[in-house]
């Protein structure tokens, strides 16, 4: 697969739902706050898209620079636009 034509439906990795629940819980202010499993699936997908976009964009940057290994400098270059796109 190339970067431009990347198909996320071919990605098998998913975030563990129970781990996600624990992570969100740590940052809740109110102890009464709950989240259902269905809703966690949606959040997992958002996080999956974020991770994939970060990897693809950094990969594209490395490719533009003629490299096959993605380094921190490549991630740094794509970070501002990524953050703006995921506000």
């Amino acid at each position, binding site marked *: 697969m190339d970067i431009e034509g990347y198909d996320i439906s071919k990605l098998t990795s998913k975030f563990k739902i129970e781990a996600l629940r624990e992570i969100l819980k740590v940052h*809740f202010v109110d102890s009464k*706050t709950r989240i259902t499993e269905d809703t966690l699936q949606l*959040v997992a*997908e*958002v996080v999956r898209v*974020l991770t994939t976009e*970060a990897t693809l964009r950094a990969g594209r940057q490395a490719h533009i620079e003629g490299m096959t290994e993605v380094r921190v400098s*490549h991630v740094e270059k794509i970070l501002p636009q990524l953050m703006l796109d995921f506000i």
Partner: protein
Amino acid sequence: MDGLNHEEKLRLTVHSEVRKMCREVGGQIKMELDKDAVSVIAELVWRKMCVISQDLEHFAKHAKRSTINAEDVKLLARRNPSLRAIVCRMADDAVKKKRQNKEKATEDLS
């Protein structure tokens, strides 16, 4: 893992999940990510999760609910049309599936 507090353990979990995902994507686009690049992506995912958590809680509270639901996640994605489309499609598919399962269950009973 002894001597690590709860938050540190969760950070490690995020790091390992992100590493797994970056490796798979990397494999698919035929690129490798060096370990520091993965760490930076894992850190940004962790920080985003912190913000997402607080936002979702606030949205639910604003709607006078204590349980976060799909509407809150759709609101989270409001500024990015393609992300919002992904969330809406997934939420609608889940609702459809539930309805189908319910219909099938009532059919089986009758």
